[in-house]
């Protein structure tokens, strides 16, 4: 019961704040009905941010899942399942996102950053690339840092599933004459498909919530080119002190995230029951 209250309290607060005029110091000043919600739905900034956030989440989740699954399969094939490689894989995901942001700001830095330096070594005299100050590329810079940090989680989950699969089925298929590729496509992959779907789901949710990286690397800029929903909500609530609007955007994000996540969730469940 206590747990239920604990879980429901933030949700209730968000719903009631979205229906009222609420500032940071004084929530629930007057009842506005759906005025906040209508204003946020109509706002171009909110629409752009939700669109950006959705594209970002799907892109990052796809990239992480594909790269992570490929790495897990490679790891499984090449037998190097030792402690060292597992520890190395753990490292990115336990680095605080704030530090990941600082690290990738260094890497993308136009004055002596890793990428800048490498480009200069390969082709001396070429121009500088300030990825994080470019309205088109900044979001990809953030995405790269995100993929670097969380792909190891996908690797770990899929790799464990590969190790845990039922060997008897694989051996039976081999006796029936299935070759390596057939074996992988028809036996191995379906057996770990549920895990891959679950990893994609977790990754999707994490990417929808991205905040620290954006805060550290670009602060939503340049312009509003990296203003993901979580950052926009933070700005309305804690810079503009408009909690009513922030709560409304949170609700909209919840709706969008649910619409995107639900099909994946169903797929995950179906694979689990097979």
């Amino acid at each position: 019961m206590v747990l239920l209250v604990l879980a429901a309290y933030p949700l209730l607060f968000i719903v009631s704040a979205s229906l009222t005029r609420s500032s940071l110091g004084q929530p629930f000043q007057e009842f506005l009905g759906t005025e906040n919600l209508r204003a946020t739905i109509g706002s171009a900034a909110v629409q752009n941010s939700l669109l950006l956030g959705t594209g970002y989440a799907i892109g990052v989740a796809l990239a992480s899942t594909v790269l992570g699954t490929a790495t897990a399969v490679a790891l499984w094939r090449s037998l190097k399942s030792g402690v060292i490689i597992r520890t190395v894989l753990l490292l990115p995901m336990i680095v605080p996102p704030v530090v990941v942001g600082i690290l990738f700001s260094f890497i993308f830095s136009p004055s002596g950053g890793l990428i800048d330096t490498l480009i200069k070594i390969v082709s001396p005299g070429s121009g500088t690339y300030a990825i994080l100050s470019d309205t088109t590329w900044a979001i990809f810079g953030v995405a790269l840092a995100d993929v670097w940090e969380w792909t190891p989680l996908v690797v770990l989950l899929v790799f464990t599933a590969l190790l845990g699969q039922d060997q008897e089925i694989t051996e039976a298929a081999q006796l029936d004459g299935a070759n390596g590729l057939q074996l992988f496509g028809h036996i191995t992959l379906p057996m770990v498909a549920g895990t891959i779907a679950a990893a994609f789901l977790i990754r999707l949710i994490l990417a929808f919530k991205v905040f620290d990286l954006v805060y550290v690397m670009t602060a939503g800029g340049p312009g509003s080119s990296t203003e993901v929903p979580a950052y926009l909500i933070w700005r309305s609530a804690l810079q503009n002190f408009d909690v009513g609007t922030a709560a409304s955007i949170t609700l909209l994000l919840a709706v969008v995230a649910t619409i995107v996540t639900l099909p994946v969730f169903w797929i995950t469940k179906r694979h689990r029951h097979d």
Partner: protein
Amino acid sequence: MTDTLTHQQAIPAATATKAPRPSTLTRQGRRSRAGSLLASGWVLGAAVVVVVPLLYLVSISVMTQAQIASGILVPTDPAWQNWADAWNSPLPRGVLNSLIAAFGGAVLSLALAVPGAWTIARHRTGGKTLSGLILSPWLLPPIVAIVPLLTLLRMVGLSNTLTGLTLVYALMNVPVAIWLLDGFIRRIPVDIEESGRIDGANELQLLCRIVVPLLVPALIAVGVIIAILNYNEFLFATFLTQSEESQTVTVLLAGMLSERVQDFGRMAASSLIAVIPIFTIAVLLQRWLVEGLTTGAVK
């Protein structure tokens, strides 16, 4: 390990059954070897991608601003001054604060979550709706939840204290702890609990004497995961710890970004000092950590 071994040995055995067509055999053998080579190459590449950024951070931490701008990757003359500067700042205090809040919060989360997770897993209380609802706040960015928390902490006089932050972390991660523990609790055979019940143990005794001892590895695994989540947390910490003596390490690091002149070398050294404690913990407890992530997150 044994699983992969049998798999690797099984492939040549299977191709051997197709001996009547020797040409296919050799072609397949070659393809398989090329596949293994590709796989090893891919693993090596992945390891490089993971490690190079971290090594680059180490490299920057011993470079002066001029060395960084001149476009060298490894300094011939390491500037250890950055590390001294980072150490002689509020940073070590921040690391200590972070560790206290992270582990204090994790222990409290577990204490609150174990009875809940056990009830849900065993008695099917509330069915799927409840476990779904419990995790639902985790799906949303937690920014708006800060507002009621801030008000609450101010009312009980715990705003800007480490105690307040620890309590917030403890409550915040109860759903995550329940979700992760669920997979472990389901693995405990019901028979053990049944026999305890027949011997006359009540629910509380059952929980304390039978379930918790069996769960110790799971508690370590989930506890470490939650402690790391807490340690890395930034958003709540910025708002709940504004005073210098309660600031956590992520807050201090983010604060360095808004300094007028950014000293990359000192920032890198500070980042590394922040990361060293959790890297140490993760390396020492990696078996539990991996176990917790894989059993808890995917059921």
